[in-house]
């Protein structure tokens, strides 16, 4: 097991853990934040898979824009929480 494989396994484990926490946490705001974290971990995964184009697009669109859309939907971007968990 070389360093690259160890890093891949660690990254995959972090991906699965953050996805699980995003689905299971009772607070919707934390869920969206964890989803953004998941998106950034996906960016690292794409970089490991020799796919820099996808990494750029995932960071900007997958984590950034989708995260912003979800945060706007739960109301935090307007300074007040619209939705209870």
């Amino acid at each position, binding site marked *: 097991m070389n360093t*690259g*494989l160890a890093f*891949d*396994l660690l990254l*995959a484990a972090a*991906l*699965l853990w953050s*996805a*699980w926490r*995003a*689905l299971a946490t009772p607070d*919707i705001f934390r*869920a*969206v934040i964890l*989803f953004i974290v*998941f*998106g950034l971990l*996906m960016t690292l*995964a*794409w970089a*490991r*898979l*020799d*796919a820099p*184009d*996808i990494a750029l*697009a*995932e960071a900007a*669109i*997958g984590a950034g*824009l*989708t995260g912003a*859309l*979800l945060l706007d*939907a*739960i109301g935090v971007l307007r300074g007040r929480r619209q*939705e209870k968990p």
Partner: protein
Amino acid sequence: MTTGLVFAVAGAILFSMGVAGVILLAHLLRRILAFNLMGSGAFLVLVGLAQRAGIADPVPQAMVLTGIVVAVAATALALALARRLHALTGAYTLPEARDD
């Protein structure tokens, strides 16, 4: 066990987690989140399996690039519908889910 295979396996697990989430969760925003997880899992499977021999393959990478953009379009569409429902009924759950 190459990089591609590791992430393909992770993608398969992510996909099934997303499916379970879409079916089980009642809150619409959480369902949309789970749907996005499904999409990301599918993309990982697509690229990971193609690159299981370790060679970078541009065709599935281009497909996934397309897929990410389509996924954000679908997410925005789903959010528009969910927000309309919220504006009309005040909650982010479907009426039939609220009855039981």
